């Protein structure tokens, strides 16, 4: 029996998982139209590889990865590309992005699929295959999986010792991973062995919350059948126990250092659905064109569906038969999900759950009262923060202090807001403060760049004037005074000035955004995009709260 560890805090919200686990995964019917965004992953948008009017087959590449952090996009079924244009995405403010609209022909005709045995393929080739199969993290971060399987060049002496499969699924209502584990455990285990092989990890731990006994049993059986030495571990049901850093802590006792990645402590973590997707991509040659999604909440028939990427959410939700008083929709769970502006948007790779909501099911919070410093928030914070202090700083717009008190270690799990007896929208304040700080840092960076440019221009004008005057003087004298020395000195001066400018720039860059790994940069870029819009929301919310 493995010794499990604890992380600080956590909450026990009602699970509401039974509703959607009464029946097995059903295949969602082929929709009338699919809208496939070219960016469903962290990083750069995929380049369209098809033209409007072109007939495509199921699994055909329609978006080529472009850039270091990027992933491929495929046609989820056979049909005709009707349009390639900007369409609204699942995003709180209805942000649009480049999408292909596909009219299915109903034949579900696959491209040629090549099943491969990973053991005969070099790791580098496998990573390329995963990238070209559009395999990204299905737990929500949608980070391209191939990049998480790279050898750690930065740490030549370190390597991954532990591969963790995240089957915790701690958010209420969501059961897509649970059902996947119950029904497709064997393939998850095969996929885990493939990833372990690629990472050359020495152990594989599969963490599942103990409120999923069926999934635990299914995986234990699958591991035993495969004759592998993986450990399937029941972890205590506590939110946010499925957060990567929290799960790593519970299983290994290790804490991922602040601002670092799990790989820095020799651990790599994948969601079970991602592992399944990776296995299908290599062993069956099937790119990621569908996923399991939970349709639940205020519906007559809650259930999990295997749905094609690009399925309009309205069609997906209709399968659950929403009750008449449904007036809102949430993508993801009630703790970290987002309210959708409309249902006229497609299912994307990161979409794990749709909750139909009503005032009765998810009552809006009562008006906020002042903080009474009861510290319930601090008692439940899984990042060991002092949420009441961060709230105070955010409210006072004392962003420097907020940063000093580790605002950026907040994972926005919402546990603090969940327990707050004053019903303060705490997470909204943290998002607001984070976006303000990021915006200011970018402004500062831009201002520094502009200043350096300006100073160098001033210097150049001055130098040109001086050189011109010197040349003129030299010519007027018609003397044989050597000018080589001056030119050389000027060049030295330019070099020195540029060096100074570089140093100033280095000194002026903000601490938090210095020396980030590409993965972190991609995450930031992605978060930044969301923030720009959330910022508006947060501001409207904060102002509303103040009234």
């Amino acid at each position, binding site marked *: 029996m493995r010794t499990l560890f604890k992380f600080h805090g956590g909450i026990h919200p009602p699970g509401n998982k039974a509703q959607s686990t009464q029946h097995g995964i059903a295949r969602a019917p082929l929709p009338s139209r699919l809208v496939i965004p070219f960016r469903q992953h962290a990083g750069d948008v995929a380049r369209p590889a098809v033209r409007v009017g072109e007939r495509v087959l199921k699994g055909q590449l329609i978006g080529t990865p472009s850039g270091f952090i990027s992933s491929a996009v495929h046609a989820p079924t056979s049909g005709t590309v009707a349009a390639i244009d900007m369409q609204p995405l699942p995003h709180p403010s209805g942000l649009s992005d480049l999408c292909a609209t596909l009219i299915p022909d109903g034949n579900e005709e696959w491209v040629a699929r090549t099943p491969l045995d990973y053991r005969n393929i070099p790791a580098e080739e496998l990573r390329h295959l995963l990238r070209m199969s559009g395999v990204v993290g299905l737990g929500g971060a949608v980070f391209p999986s191939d990049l998480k399987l790279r050898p750690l060049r930065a740490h030549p002496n370190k390597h991954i010792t532990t591969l963790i499969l995240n089957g915790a699924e701690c958010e209420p209502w969501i059961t897509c991973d649970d059902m996947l584990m119950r029904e497709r455990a064997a393939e998850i285990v095969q996929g885990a062995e493939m990833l372990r092989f690629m990472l050359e990890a020495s152990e594989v731990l599969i963490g599942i919350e103990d409120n999923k006994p069926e999934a635990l049993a299914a995986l234990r059986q699958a591991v035993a059948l495969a004759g592998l030495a993986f450990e399937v571990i029941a972890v205590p049901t506590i939110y946010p126990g499925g957060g990567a850093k929290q799960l790593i802590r519970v299983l290994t006792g290790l804490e991922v250092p602040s601002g*670092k990645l799990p790989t820095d402590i020799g651990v790599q973590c994948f969601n079970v659905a991602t592992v399944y997707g990776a296995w299908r991509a290599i062993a069956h040659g099937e790119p990621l064109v569908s996923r399991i999604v939970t349709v639940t909440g205020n519906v007559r028939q809650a259930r999990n569906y295997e749905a094609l990427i690009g399925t309009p959410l309205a069609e997906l939700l209709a399968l659950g038969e929403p009750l008449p008083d449904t007036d809102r929709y949430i993508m993801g769970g*009630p703790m970290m999900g*987002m309210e959708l502006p409309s249902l006229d948007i497609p299912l994307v790779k990161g979409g794990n759950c749709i909750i139909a909501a009503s005032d009765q099911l998810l009552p809006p919070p009562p008006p906020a009262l002042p903080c*009474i410093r009861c510290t319930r928030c601090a008692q439940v914070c899984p990042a060991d923060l*002092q949420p009441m202090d961060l709230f105070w700083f955010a409210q006072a717009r004392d962003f420097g202090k907020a940063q000093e008190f580790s605002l950026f270690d907040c994972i926005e799990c919402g546990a603090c807001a969940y327990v707050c007896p004053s019903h303060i929208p705490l997470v909204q304040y943290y998002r607001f403060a984070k976006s303000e700080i990021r915006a200011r840092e970018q402004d500062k960076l831009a201002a520094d760049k502009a200043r350096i440019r300006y100073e160098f221009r001033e210097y150049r004008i001055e130098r040109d004037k001086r050189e011109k005057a010197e040349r003129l003087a030299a010519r007027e004298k018609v003397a044989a005074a050597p000018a080589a020395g001056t030119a050389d000195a000027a060049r030295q001066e330019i070099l020195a000035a540029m060096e100074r400018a570089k140093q100033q720039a280095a000194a002026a860059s903000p601490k938090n955004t210095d020396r980030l790994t590409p993965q972190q940069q991609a995450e930031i870029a992605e978060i930044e995009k969301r923030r720009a819009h959330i910022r508006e929301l947060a501001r409207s919310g904060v102002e509303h709260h103040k009234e």
Partner: protein
Amino acid sequence: MAIFSSPFISKPDTVAQIMFRVLLALLPAVALYVWNYGPAVLVSIALASVTALATEAVMLKLRQRPVAPFLRDNSALVTAWLLALAIPPLTPWWLIVLGTAFGIAVAKHLYGGLGNNLFNPAMVGYAVLIVSFPAQMTHWPSPLGLGQAELGFLDQLGYIFAGTLPGGIGPDAFSMATPLDTLKTQLHLDKSMGQIFEMPIYGYLGGKGGEMVAFGFLLGGLYLLAARIITWHIPVAFLGTLFAVAGIAHLLDPAHYAAPLFHWFSGAAMLGAFFILTDPVSGPTTDRGKLIFAAGAGLITWLIRTFGGFPDGVAFATLLMNICVPLIVLYTQPAVFGKKGQP
């Protein structure tokens, strides 16, 4: 329409509910008060409550804040009850009104209202009264059956509202020095500890009657712990420190220093440990901070009781430690996830 962001669910707990449970937790002590000293304390509580709510409403109005939601949060009632239970149960009405109004208006609302006060409003009210009206504030009625004169409920009402007593007796007839006070004065008279504790006002652990009320506060405090309204840190550190310093002194010189259990069950020690020092607004937020804060209060309480000029030290200990809260919190920040072992 406001757009709400995640989380979309929350616990149904409210500030009003927390405050209500604190009131509930005070009931055992209130009942024992009535049992031992008669029903006058109920009048004090009612008077303080009405004053607190009225002051709260006026101050909210003056500060142009919504009145109804804040009146419903029960926080003013908690202040009122705590003050009413901290002062002698038989007190002239104007004293109660003055103390409560001062606590709510100055200590709470001038600092920004609910959640913003640096000092415990009930203790500020208490401090103002004991500094300004020491005579009235030391007229503690004798427990029933111990005084020279027994006052009926109507007599008590007459004293509270009109300041008159039947048959022209003075307050000395029904009141007496508190056990803590008596101890101090008798020690000055070179009486031995054994002689002093043979006096009829002393009970098993503290003063007769008072020790039972203290037990009531202990009971209520245990309920607050069980209901997770307070954490163990403050009561344990306060009572632990008080026990330790009193115990050491008592061991060194039992003739001059009272036993630790006497300190626990005398005066406002139990009230302070579970209800006063645990006020979240004016106390520290970190766990280690709570330990330091309450330990300091325990030490100061013992020092004032033993060497100071006031009969009890809980109120001043609380206020003195309230001053230190921002500093304590700053230096007791817990290590953030992923930053453990780092400066």
